[in-house]
């Protein structure tokens, strides 16, 4: 019996009161010694009770089904629904009124609007490829011009090597000294360059010659017998210049003027 004891049939028969008195006593005796069996017997009775309470099991199943299928939209109070419908209707009527007013206004203004470009025309205009190309070319040209200008400015400051090594105190006439300007002058266009010199003995007439960095003479003074001589820089464009101080045809000294 012990082997059979734990089978489902014996537990079921005990719950259903289908065992005879001797068998029942044996089951109870075994149960008193085995807590696991006691648990199973009690659970079987509970399951039986649960199954027999048909109404409760139906209700439980219904609640479970409702919860499972409960992902439905919430239906509110009928008054709320009516209120919501009324609000929607009012909103729709307002929108419809607005639409018809706008429509009427458009119909009245139709001749005026005929003057304006249609959408197709605007699209065609916006897709005008030659115009776009022209615009692009203009932009490119402007950029090129800017680059050329910068290049030209840079070239104006390029030094002339054959003059550079002459800058300084070169003189063949030991009786004449140039006091100003210095050998290398940096000035702006609004400044005035003062040429001043002194003679130890009788002064010979001096000539001042300004040439640009390409060696082209751009200014030559008349023979000067008295110092000083003022040369306004406003007459010079931005760039690098070289000045020569000549006594008759002899070079007294040479220097550079950088106009910024």
């Amino acid at each position, binding site marked *: 019996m012990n082997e059979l004891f734990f089978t*489902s049939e014996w537990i079921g*028969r005990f719950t259903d009161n289908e065992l005879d008195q001797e068998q029942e006593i044996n089951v109870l005796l075994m149960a008193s010694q085995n807590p696991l069996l006691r648990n199973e017997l009690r659970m079987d009775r509970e399951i039986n009770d649960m199954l027999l309470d048909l109404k409760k*099991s139906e209700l*439980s199943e219904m*609640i479970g089904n409702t919860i499972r299928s*409960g992902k439905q939209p919430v239906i509110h109070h*009928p008054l709320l629904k009516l209120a919501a419908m009324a609000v929607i209707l009012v909103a729709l009527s307002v929108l419809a009124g607005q639409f018809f007013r706008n429509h009427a206004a458009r119909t009245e203004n139709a001749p005026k609007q005929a003057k304006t470009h249609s959408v197709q025309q605007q699209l065609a205009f916006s897709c005008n490829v030659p115009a776009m190309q022209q615009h692009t070319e203009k932009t490119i040209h402007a950029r090129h011009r800017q680059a050329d200008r910068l290049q030209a400015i840079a070239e104006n400051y390029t030094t002339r090597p054959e003059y550079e090594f002459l800058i300084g105190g070169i003189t063949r006439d030991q009786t004449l000294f140039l006091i100003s300007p210095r050998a290398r002058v940096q000035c702006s266009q609004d400044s005035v360059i003062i040429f001043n010199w002194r003679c130890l003995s009788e002064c010979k007439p001096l000539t001042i010659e300004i040439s640009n960095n390409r060696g082209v003479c751009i200014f030559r003074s008349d023979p000067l017998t008295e110092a000083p001589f003022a040369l306004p820089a406003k007459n010079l464009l931005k760039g690098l210049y070289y000045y020569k101080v000549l006594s008759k045809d002899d070079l007294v000294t040479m220097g550079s003027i950088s106009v910024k």
Partner: protein
Amino acid sequence: MILWYSNEMLVQGLLQSKKSCIEFIYREYFPMVRSAIGIQNGSLADAEDVFHDGLLIIYGRLRTEGFTLNSSFKTYLFAVCRNLWRRRMERKYRLMYKAENMVSEPSCDDSYIDSFEEKEAEKYRLYMKHLKEMPEFCRHLLRLYIEKVPLREIAEIMNYKDAEYVKARKYYCKNLLRKKIMSDPECKQFMNYE
């Protein structure tokens, strides 16, 4: 379709397990329960379980003689569910931290839930859950048994040879259900009857 139920209609609907009534209770009152449980760190599944158990507890109380509902159904359901959740939280807290000196104050005497009632409701729900997961023939057989259909008729319906075999199958199915319940970690708390 009735869109709004009075207190009496809800009580009668619950007692008679009316589907429309249950659906109304769910759609109108479940969000309130879900919100209350959600505030106290409960999940949606927790809220669903508590709602289910709460309705079963109210159903059990409504069936007892001499019980009268003194408040509205909504208030009562909310109080029951809140107390139920509080009890579960206390139980969980005790299991986690072994704290024995928790203080629990029921919100009103009317909706107070004792430990036995709470456990019974949870046990019932879990048993029903496992019953649903049984094989089709078992559910059919047990359904016929519940409806007190004679064993000979069950044998004819299920194509079994005789009533004895029906009994054997019934014991087998109940055994299967027992084993399923015993192997469920959620049901372990109900296993120790000693």
